[in-house]
């Protein structure tokens, strides 16, 4: 099983993430998002952040999770290299490891404006799968 793959979308960036459980799915979706904005190979796991969220559905929880990562990236200038996500119902607890963004050390890539609800889906077959469209 792949962690995630980018899809064709004319205007924006869309990806599909996979996981054996919802937590792993969210971890992979986070990596997909971060990889658009920064070259992850350069990001060390030298600092941490804890995120807790509660929503109404898995889709809403995913939207909130990715939106939160986006804000942390842009406002706190913190890039997440890896994370451990556990979920209980539609609540999430995430321990994120990463580093403060430093343009002299990190290669910044593209700005993601926002996460969209467009075709946002979390489904379960043999494994969990999510589809996300981002506005870039």
């Amino acid at each position: 099983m792949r962690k995630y793959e980018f899809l064709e979308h004319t205007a924006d960036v869309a990806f599909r993430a996979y996981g054996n459980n919802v937590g792993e799915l969210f971890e992979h979706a986070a990596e997909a998002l971060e990889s658009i904005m920064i070259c992850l190979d350069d990001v060390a796991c030298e600092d941490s952040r804890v995120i807790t969220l509660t929503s109404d559905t898995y889709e809403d929880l995913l939207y909130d999770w990715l939106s939160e990562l986006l804000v942390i990236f842009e406002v706190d200038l913190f890039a997440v290299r890896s994370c451990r996500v556990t979920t209980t119902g539609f609540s999430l607890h995430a321990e994120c490891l990463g580093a403060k963004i430093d343009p002299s050390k990190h290669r910044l890539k593209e700005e993601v404006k926002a996460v969209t609800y467009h075709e946002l889906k979390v489904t379960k077959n043999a494994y969990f799968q999510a589809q996300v469209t981002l506005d870039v």
Partner: protein
Amino acid sequence: MINERLVRKDDYTWEIAKDETLGMRVPGRIFLSDALMRFLEPAAIQQVANVATLPGIVKWSLAMPDVHTGYGFPIGGVAAFDATEGIVSPGGVGFDINCGTRLLATTLTKEEIEQEIQTLTTKLYESVPAGLGSKGSLRFSEKELDQVFLRGAKWAVDSGYGDAGDLKHCESNGCFDGADVSNVSPLAKKRGMPQLGSLGSGNHFLEIQFVDQIYEEREASVFGLRPGQVCIMLHSGSRGAGHQICTDYLKLFQKASQKYAIRLPDRQLACVPADSRDGRSYFSAMAAAANYAWANRQIMSYRVRDVIEREFSTGAGLVYDVAHNIAKLETHHIDGERKEVYVHRKGATRAFEKDESYGVAQPVLIPGSMGTASYVLCGTTKAMQTTFGSTCHGAGRVMSRKAAKRQLTWKGVTESLRQKHITLKTDDLSAVPEEAPEAYKPIDEVISVVSALGISKVVARLVPMGVIKG
């Protein structure tokens, strides 16, 4: 192949019949030439049809010739909603509220700067912050940020970033009435604070261009444009402030849509009645973001002018500043009646038949893709009658960013720019293929369609000399 859902009405107008089983309240209309038809994606047709299902939509759900798939609304989408019975939709405006273009015209000629183009592009690149997370390097208090949200370009001019004459040549005079900062979240303010005066990334740019051709002598002369003249075009929006305002209200309206029993074909179309507390809150926050964007472009103009002044001891007058992601309350003549409507332009530009300050039709600024021509158009009576006073906003993408990166290399794209004597500056060369001309429709064809339809008149064609890609 022409999609079976489309019925040809004339050379450039294709209709999607009103399908009540899909919940469409009005027909859809897409404006395309035969040459552009091959770029039309079935998903974009579906998005035009989806918009036609929203409550209070008037006459048609429209798509301009630069149409392509977006999220929720198509890009190039225009829809008007009855002011009392209709809705407002954050997704119908987009995350980059009041993303728009601005054109400054210098007194310089192409020949005068040809030898200096590398230096000029570099100086502008150093002066106007661009790229991911770019910051405006301005110091101001939270109270002043509130003034930015309330007064837009007027705040910028009063703070010394330009002169009062600039405001005359901005859509809505660079200030959207009705902004209410109490409806802007602390997070939106926090995101907006450091970024004021910066370009951003993606398809945002600053270009040094020259006037290659004049098509309408009278309008060109009124707008202050002449052959060979050097101009500066800016494309940017409301940065993180606008992105967060849209995010906040989209989230809020997920539940509100259920509260108002609005059935949505796509969650990104979440909307509320315009004439409701929720609707008024969004509209006042959207106005605040629009004002931020006008102030943002005004501050960047100040920095551009400073460079021109220092390098060439001359100035640059504002030709026009116009939004292409916005919703506005406007009065239109519809079926013989004057009607107040909320016109949503998502990747579409206002093109009114009259501009008060110029006394002729409103200028319309249409950027091409990186390395291709841009255009100055003007509005028409036909646009007022058929597109709620709107036209296209650019070339329109045809290739996904992923495909562009797969099929093109940054070296190849920069080499082709070099062959056209165009200087490029960017802090992210790897993203250059995404904005290459091959990733977009041919701008000249898009312009020929809006011209042939009569929804805009072509005034001038501008060709790039230097590009700063955000």
